[in-house]
């Protein structure tokens, strides 16, 4: 195991962070605006989000670079800013952590689909390699490939991330099929664990898509399917519209109470995805300690 992970995993579960996008919106990010571009235009606000997570107890924080691969940034007309946005993203998280947390830099999906041939595997691999290299040169402690729906895309991202020599977390969304235990493309937790491990991931995970109740059984299945550490970041339940505003009804306390089952299942990294906030991390920190 990579020495960074060995040190980090002496005491588990390790607390990661919660959602960034919704936090940035609270600070003025407009709907449809590229959140990652704020690394260049509003670094202070991004730093504030990162700092709130570290203050709440995150031992690992991510970076505001979820969409910062060339293919996704192209949609916002920002393809020429790949290196700048990724470099700033790592720097901002690093400054906010000030030595109190490690920086696991975020790599999200391209938003294009291999199966429909709108993008080739080579183009995808090149985009992920470019992003991973930029994140690594900026000093990330590890890379997190997250919110992946297609195992093939996730494997290309792992392949790209591995070229940096950093530890690689690979996390997929399980929200499909009648039991909500498959990825969009139909892969089971067992297939995901096996294939991502074979591709060279150091940590296997699940995030987004489902709330805590959905990811507890998924975590157990991932745990049984691999000896690698497990990473879980559920949503704060399902979104509801309340007076025209998207609201997640799960409270930080409920979320944290349920998270005890993740710890008991042997999950190494616990945090939250959509709808979670520094309050959720604080509740997790209180509950899991």
């Amino acid at each position, binding site marked *: 195991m990579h020495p960074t992970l060995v040190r980090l995993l002496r005491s588990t579960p390790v607390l990661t962070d919660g959602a960034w*996008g919704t936090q940035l*919106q609270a600070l003025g990010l407009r709907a449809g605006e590229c959140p990652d571009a704020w690394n260049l235009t509003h670094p202070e606000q991004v730093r504030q989000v990162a700092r709130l997570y570290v203050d709440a107890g995150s031992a690992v924080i991510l970076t505001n670079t979820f969409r910062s691969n060339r293919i996704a940034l192209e949609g916002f007309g920002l393809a020429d800013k790949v290196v700048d946005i990724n470099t700033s993203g790592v720097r901002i998280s690093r400054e906010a952590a000030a030595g109190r947390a490690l920086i696991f830099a975020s790599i999200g999906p391209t*938003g294009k*689909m291999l199966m429909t041939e709108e993008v080739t595997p080579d183009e995808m691999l090149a985009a992920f390699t470019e992003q991973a290299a930029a994140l690594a040169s900026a000093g990330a402690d590890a890379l997190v490939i997250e919110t992946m*729906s297609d195992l093939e895309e996730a494997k290309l991202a792992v392949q790209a991330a591995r070229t940096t020599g950093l530890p690689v977390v690979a996390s997929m969304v399980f929200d499909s099929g009648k039991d909500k235990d498959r990825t969009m493309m*139909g892969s089971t937790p067992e297939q995901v664990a096996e294939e991502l491990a074979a591709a060279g991931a150091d940590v296997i995970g699940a995030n987004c898509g489902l709330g805590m109740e959905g990811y507890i059984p998924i975590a157990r299945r991932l745990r049984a399917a691999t000896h690698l550490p497990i990473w879980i970041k559920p949503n704060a339940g399902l979104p509801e519209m309340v007076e025209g505003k998207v609201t997640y009804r799960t409270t930080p306390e409920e979320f944290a109470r349920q998270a005890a089952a993740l710890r008991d299942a042997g999950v190494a990294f616990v945090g939250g995805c959509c709808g979670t906030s520094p309050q959720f991390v604080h509740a997790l920190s209180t509950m899991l300690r």
Partner: protein
Amino acid sequence: MEDLKKLYDAILTGNFKSAKEITQQALAAGADPQAMVQQYMIPAMDEVGRRYEANEYFVPELLISARAMKASLEFIRPLLIASGAEPAGRVVIGTVKGDLHDIGKNLVAAMLEGAGFEVIDLGVDVSPEKFITALNEKKAGLVAMSALLTTTMNSMKTTVEAMKAAGVRNNVKIMIGGAPVTEKYAEEIGADGYSTNANGAVALARKLVAA
């Protein structure tokens, strides 16, 4: 028409090459295009849908079957149009303003085409005005809106309101979909229905067109 069972199989297994070949051969031999669609092709896509609901098929299988269906329809559709047959319905589809995600929308579009609908795809980040213009120009009876993000789904509401203001709301049925969309949200913004997946969207579109 023993050979057309092979067309059914080709669509069901997503073999677009053989779907195309069998279609060309059958048409050359004088098969009735309408009967091919009704008796073999749509039943094949229905079986694809059944397998999807039963966890036997997933998105990749939906996609390859829809592609095989489309390959066959490319030869059949001109003949149907020439004979005056109408499509199952005309759908204007797009991802709403502010949202650039197109995977879900593309899947729904492919499945609707596979079910015999004429699909007018407006792409992503579609403004209410663009939806309204397309509805008017194409005389579509259905509009399908997609959003992946909780932050952009409110563009659906804005679009429905703009359609009301432009006086076109009552000419069409509105269906919506995307990760954060719920039945309650569909009701709240005054849409006619929602679906959680591309297969369900076909059933919904058929229901709305028949209503």
